[in-house]
């Protein structure tokens, strides 16, 4: 898994790691059950503080993207199965609102915006 | 551990100086042995009654041991200054003092380890003369064999004193060259100032202080047989003075800030 973080941007490093891991999982480059590098290994590879990686992994585990096995080892999980569909939609709504607001401001046609979203889905290779 | 580093730095010099002194001792011994035989040969063909009664063995032995003075004084000065110049103080000038002073050891250990090693090395170097000379003196005169080491305690004590002074001054100035220059200045002052005072201002020094003069090498002026007790007394006095300097260096290094 090749990740890249930019420590000079204003974005917290752990957030960058989280979003990149989510991206990788969403693009099916890593499937459920695949192993992730340990905190120590990833921190060494990225040359960042292990606490930062640990925090990212904690957040990812809480969101159900990954899971840690008691004996050690971190693996890709398959989301939080306990989440209701309505809850999942609720989480997506702010992003949808933001997209709608931006495209209105830029005076882009809603159809064209929807096509953009479809393009992104196809680039990810469809549903995981 | 600083002792090991001092050793690394000084072992080559120790070997060189010791070998030189040993060689000089041997050469001097050989020379006087040759004189002895020649004198004996002359005596055997001599027709002079006074010369026949002359104790060649005694006087050749005396000559051999007296010649030590010619070599030991410069050797002592050279060794003391050289070892003092390369003592711990010069790490200041080299910029390595933060490293030295951040090793986990009390600061007095550094100074005393350094001093003790230097003192031991000076002892060894200065002993080499007598060691080189002794086998030859043994052939010349039994009496003088006992005295072939006679100058050692005094010379070594003064040598260690000078070494301690140079070490202190090197620590004070942070440079071996400056340490040596100041040490030489101190020695010259010490040697001439009391005489100057005596000569021009007619100040008379008590005899106890005179014992500490550098004219202890003139032991042969008044007596043909060296006064061993006097020698040891002088050596003891100088040893006490010698110890002052490492204490001064210790005080200085403990106060020093970087």
């Amino acid at each position: 898994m090749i990740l890249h973080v930019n420590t000079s941007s204003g974005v917290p490093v752990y957030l960058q790691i989280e979003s990149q891991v989510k991206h990788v999982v969403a693009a099916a480059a890593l499937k459920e059950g695949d192993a992730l590098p340990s905190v120590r290994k990833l921190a060494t590879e990225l040359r960042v503080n292990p606490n930062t990686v640990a925090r990212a992994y904690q957040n990812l585990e809480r969101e159900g993207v990954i899971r840690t096995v008691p004996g050690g080892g971190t693996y890709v999980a398959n989301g939080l199965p306990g989440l209701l569909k309505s809850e999942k939609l609720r989480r997506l709504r702010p992003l949808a609102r933001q997209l709608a607001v931006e495209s209105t401001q830029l005076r882009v046609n809603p159809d064209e915006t929807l096509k953009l979203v479809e393009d992104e889905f196809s680039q990810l290779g469809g549903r995981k | 551990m600083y002792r090991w580093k001092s050793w690394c730095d000084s072992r080559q010099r120790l070997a060189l100086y010791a070998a030189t002194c040993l060689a000089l001792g041997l050469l001097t011994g050989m020379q006087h042995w040759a004189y002895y035989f020649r004198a004996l040969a002359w005596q055997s063909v001599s027709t002079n009654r006074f010369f026949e009664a002359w104790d060649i063995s005694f006087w050749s032995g005396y000559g051999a041991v007296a010649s030590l003075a010619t070599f030991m004084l410069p050797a002592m000065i050279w060794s003391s200054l050289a070892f003092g110049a390369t003592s711990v103080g010069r790490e200041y000038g080299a910029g390595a003092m933060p490293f030295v002073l951040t090793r986990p050891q009390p600061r007095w250990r550094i100074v005393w380890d350094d001093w003790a090693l230097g003192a031991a090395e000076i002892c060894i170097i200065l002993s080499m003369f007598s060691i080189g000379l002794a086998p030859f003196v043994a052939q010349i005169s039994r009496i003088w064999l006992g005295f072939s080491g006679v100058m050692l305690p005094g010379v070594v004590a003064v040598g260690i004193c000078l070494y301690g002074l140079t070490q202190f001054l090197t620590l004070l100035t942070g440079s071996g060259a400056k340490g040596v220059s100041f040490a030489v200045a101190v020695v010259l002052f010490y040697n001439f100032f009391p005489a100057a005072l005596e000569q021009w201002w007619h100040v008379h020094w008590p005899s106890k202080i005179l014992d500490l003069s550098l004219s202890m090498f003139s032991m042969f002026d008044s007596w043909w047989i060296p006064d061993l007790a006097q020698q040891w007394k002088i050596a003891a006095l100088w040893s006490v003075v010698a110890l002052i300097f490492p204490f001064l260096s210790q005080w200085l290094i403990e106060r020093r800030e970087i």
Partner: protein
Amino acid sequence: MTETVISTQGLTKVYPDVRAVDGLDLNVPRGAVYGFLGRNGAGKTTTIRTLLGLARPTAGSAQVLGLDIRKDTVAILQRTGFVPETKQLFDSLTTDQLIRFNRGYFPKWSDALAERYISLFEIPRKRPFGKLSLGNRTKVCHLLALCQGADLLIMDEPTSGLDPVMVDLLMRVLIEDHVSEGRTVFVSSHHLSEVERIADWIGIIEGGKLLLEARLEDIRQNFRLVTASGDSASEVAAPNLISKRRAEKFHRYLVSREADDFVTRLRAQGMTVLEVSPVNLGEVFLGLAGKELPCIAGNPGVTRASA
């Protein structure tokens, strides 16, 4: 509360011509990578010297690893690895000899680590230190500190003299062998980008005073730069205001948290808030310790108001 590995209370060091350290209150938590940042001459090296017993503090107190800096210097040095600012060791000794010299002081010395680092950093073994290049000298200094088995590493300008590849290797080694083991690293530097990668705590010192001490993630997440315009003559004061700058009508405020509340207060004073943006470490540093030059385009320039 996590134990602090370095803790100072009003630490002060005064030299005849300058107050090098002035009432410093530093706190380094155990296991942290603490970036001690400041300009040249800000007092970083003097602070470190005081902590390690190379200089005596004029006033105040400090503890390293729970030990008093005035009384327990040897015990502190036993457990602390130090990379000095001037990378100077004994000119006459080779790397192998320097290792042997240093090893004698530290029972926890690791020969295995030393071997690994020598080959990783490509350190020449048999050449005397005095004949090494600056880069190699720096590497040897690091080698001696890193293999000591120290609980705390204090590194003063660790990357000076190192090329980018070596800097990268050094960071890798620090993270893998030290930070991951829970050891504390105290890095003093003015190279922000390097510190930004691995630090989790930041302390910014200027003129001998600590201007800011915060978690780096806090800075990224909560610190905000608020740009506003207005003629408000009243002073804006708030506990979360770190610094402010002003250029005629434009004001820039650096706040440490609750930027929204601050913005509300500014608006209440009749100012127009133009932008609220996150900041990186460089901007925080310049905001606190920077000097701004007068603008060229006729603007009379900025005057910096202290927070």
